[in-house]
């Protein structure tokens, strides 16, 4: 009996997911556990495995389509089975092109039969991948899509490539085509009408111009479609800066003690079975504990109330390939240093793998962001509303202080605190920083508390 494949719900807040890639195509046989497709939410990406074995009978949504959660995206069953009951009644996006019963990426259906003489060429057009929508457009305009320059995932020709082809005409001569598709070098066409010729293949770099030239056939810019996560970040950042009264205070602390303590932990790491506890973990630890005494910074500023939290759920800013993500380490003030390091590490890894549970990306009461490893001396972190504070951790610079009439140098680590002036004034924010500096400079005392 045919089994529908449902777009799973990832976290309570997620309404739709975007299919990023199909790993199986219509007609493929599927075993339980095979990865069928990858998809992503605003903040994370996932892979869906087959829960039934059989043949992938139909795919209703192709890659790049946004699908409401719990919608049937494909059907697995025996060849010849009736799948009409699974056909989605409506599609989410407003499509003028009718049937969602389209196939996903598929092999081009009009391959050139390689002649004996042209055998041995690295790729033939039968290996060209093209999305159905792109192929339909090409068909409509009687264009040979083999001339399109693929810009889709994994070298696939997508709709905009056919559009460019429509506007600019074929860009490759037929002799150069096979090697052109096999080449990952960026090539400049020097042939008729800017076509890429066999001599361009032989000579990937265009001859140097003795005089700089204005080029009109090569555009000055390309428009890159923003991924969803970028749009979400953009919206959040703009909302933060336009709806709060944020400002930043900068200070630094003597990092001698935490550096020494970190060395000690590192030396004993294996012996004691500890996590790799980083400087960042030490700072999160100290911050979480210091916040308990400065609860207007461990709070959410709501329209007419300040929601003050009794525990610290620490947001940790993570730089990933896809963009900024902020997972939450819950109850950071209650965790031991080792537990804290363990939880933080796991959350960061999940973000970078794109497999973080969306629910873990919410619920923070305060945030820490670290640009110190990139050599930043001070910066203005942007609040994560409705939180009222975010701490930027900066790099270590050597500073000089007077001790017993003598100048000594010490490692000074920078801290940049952004706070919402609507929730608290400058002096209380400065007091928090002062306490934090004290705690960090006397870390062993803090551990005893």
């Amino acid at each position, binding site marked *: 009996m045919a089994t529908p494949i449902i777009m799973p719900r990832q976290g309570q807040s997620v309404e739709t997911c975007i299919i990023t890639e199909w790993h199986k195509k219509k007609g493929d046989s599927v075993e339980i556990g095979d990865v069928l497709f990858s998809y992503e939410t605003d903040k994370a990406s996932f892979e869906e495995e087959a829960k039934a074995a059989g043949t992938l009978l139909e795919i209703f949504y192709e890659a790049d389509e946004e699908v409401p959660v719990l919608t049937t995206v494909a059907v697995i069953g025996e060849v010849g089975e009736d799948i009409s009951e699974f056909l989605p009644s409506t599609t989410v996006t407003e499509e003028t092109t009718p049937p969602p019963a389209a196939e996903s990426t598929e092999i081009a259906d009009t391959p050139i039969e390689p*002649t004996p003489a*042209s055998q041995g060429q690295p790729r033939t057009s039968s290996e060209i991948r093209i999305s159905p929508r792109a192929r339909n457009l090409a068909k409509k305009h009687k264009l040979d899509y083999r001339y399109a320059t693929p810009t889709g995932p994994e070298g696939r020709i997508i709709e905009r490539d056919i559009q460019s082809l429509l506007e600019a005409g074929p860009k490759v001569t*037929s002799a150069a085509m096979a090697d052109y598709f096999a080449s990952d070098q960026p090539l400049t066409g*020097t*042939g008729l009408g800017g076509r890429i010729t*066999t001599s361009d293949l032989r000579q990937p770099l265009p*001859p140097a*111009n*003795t005089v700089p030239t204005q080029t009109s056939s090569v555009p000055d810019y390309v428009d890159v479609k923003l991924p969803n996560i970028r749009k979400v970040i953009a919206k959040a950042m703009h909302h933060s800066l336009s709806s709060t009264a944020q400002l930043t205070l900068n200070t630094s602390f003597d990092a001698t003690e935490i550096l020494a303590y970190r060395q000690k932990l590192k030396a004993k790491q294996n012996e004691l079975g500890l996590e790799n506890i980083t400087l960042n973990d030490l700072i999160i630890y100290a911050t979480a504990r210091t916040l308990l005494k400065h609860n207007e910074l461990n709070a959410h500023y709501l329209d007419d109330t300040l929601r003050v939290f009794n525990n610290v759920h620490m947001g940790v800013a993570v730089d990933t390939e896809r963009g900024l993500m902020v997972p939450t380490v819950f109850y950071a003030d209650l965790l031991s240093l080792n537990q804290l390091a363990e939880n933080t590490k796991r959350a960061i890894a999940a973000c970078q793998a794109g497999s973080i549970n969306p629910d873990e990306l919410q619920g923070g009461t305060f945030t820490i962001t670290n640009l110190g490893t990139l050599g930043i001396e001070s910066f203005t972190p942007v609040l994560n509303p409705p939180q009222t504070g975010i701490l930027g951790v900066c790099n270590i610079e050597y500073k000089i202080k007077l001790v017993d009439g003598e100048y000594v140098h010490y490692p000074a680590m920078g801290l940049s605190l952004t706070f919402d002036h609507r929730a608290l004034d400058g002096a209380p924010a400065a007091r928090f920083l002062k306490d934090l500096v004290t705690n960090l400079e006397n870390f062993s005392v803090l551990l005893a508390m």
Partner: protein
Amino acid sequence: MIYDLIVLGGGPAGYLAAERAGKAGLNTLLIEKASLGGVCLNEGCIPSKTLLHSAKIYDYARFSSAYGVTAENVVFNHKKVIARKNKVVKILVSGVRNKMRASNVTVVEGHGHILGRDANGIQVEVENKVYQGHRLLIATGSTPLLPPIPGVEEGLKSGFVLTSREILDLPEVPDSLVIIGGGVIGLEMASYYNSAGSKVTIIEMQDQIAGEVDTQIANILMKNYQKNGITFQLNSKVTEILSDGVTYEYNGKRETIKADKVLMSVGRKPAVNGFGLENLGVELEHGAIKTDEYGKTNIPEVYAAGDVNGKYLLAHAAYREAEVCVNNMLGNKDLMRYHAVPSVIYTNPEVASIGETEQSAAAKGIEFEKANLSMRYSGRYLAENEGGDGICKVLVDKKYRHIIGVHMIGNYASEIIYGASILMETEMKIDDIQEIVFPHPTVSEILREAIFEI
């Protein structure tokens, strides 16, 4: 007034650039010191083709018994031939003038001299009047190359030695003509004057005639010429021009040959002197203006096209170079490609070639396959060429399966070769070319035959 573009020289590069620029809305000034149309139209391509056609008609009339036609008392009137040539040139020159008018190009006659440039652009003086232009296209062409051989100067003064210019206006056909240099110009003039009745000898330094032309084709052409009575002296170096003959060295021995006239046709050199090029600091290389593939010189807004860049010295290359220059001036990026520039020798039989020869492809290490077919595979050729020995060679890139060279000898070759230009510029693959329908019966079918031999 400041012109958008000043074009210096009204030959193929200059007048075509002016026409294109004017049509595109650039306020354009064209300066020509002699006659619009340049060497090509006035003393090169067109006049020589007019003469050669008269010679061809004369030869058909005299030597057509094999086709069942004989004629008596066939008279060749060289004076009338020259007069007709002048009429043709005149029509074409006025045609160019009309084109300039239709394209809103201002034409100034006189010797242009570049003065320099300032914030307002480039200044060029003509007949004591200074013109300003934002851009300059140098299209001053080329002049016959005169090697420093003793006696050349004196010979030119006395009228004993001729260049390609004077030989087109000789009032009488000389009894004997020695041609120094067996390139395109020398061969075409040899063909005409041989038909017109001169005893023609060609002295060539290399071991083959026609320069870079495919060796097999050069040899076929030479045999045809020899059959018609032309004498060749290859591997020979002229050492002195006497008052009534030429001395040359062959195999280490000096020999002298008598002549009524001597044609000096050892080549042409870019015209880069005498018009103030130095006032702009334009860079030269091997005596030619150095340009990049956009037609630009080292000086911003100064372009050069045609023979003066020393590259191909062919009118049709100049046309395209001119268009490339104007397109880049207009901000439409365009670049000059030379791999598919055809070249033709309008002898009888005609020679046409494009792209790599077997020799040049081998030198570049290109792996290729070739078809080498007798023209007699074409029914039309056989019908019209009694005893014809023409061939057609097609070279195909082994890896990419597209044409990299075509070489033909046989009449109509000059009209067929542009088809090869298209096949080469588009890099059509052999399989695709096989689907193209050629008209039957034509000589052009030889190309299709050759493609199926690959």
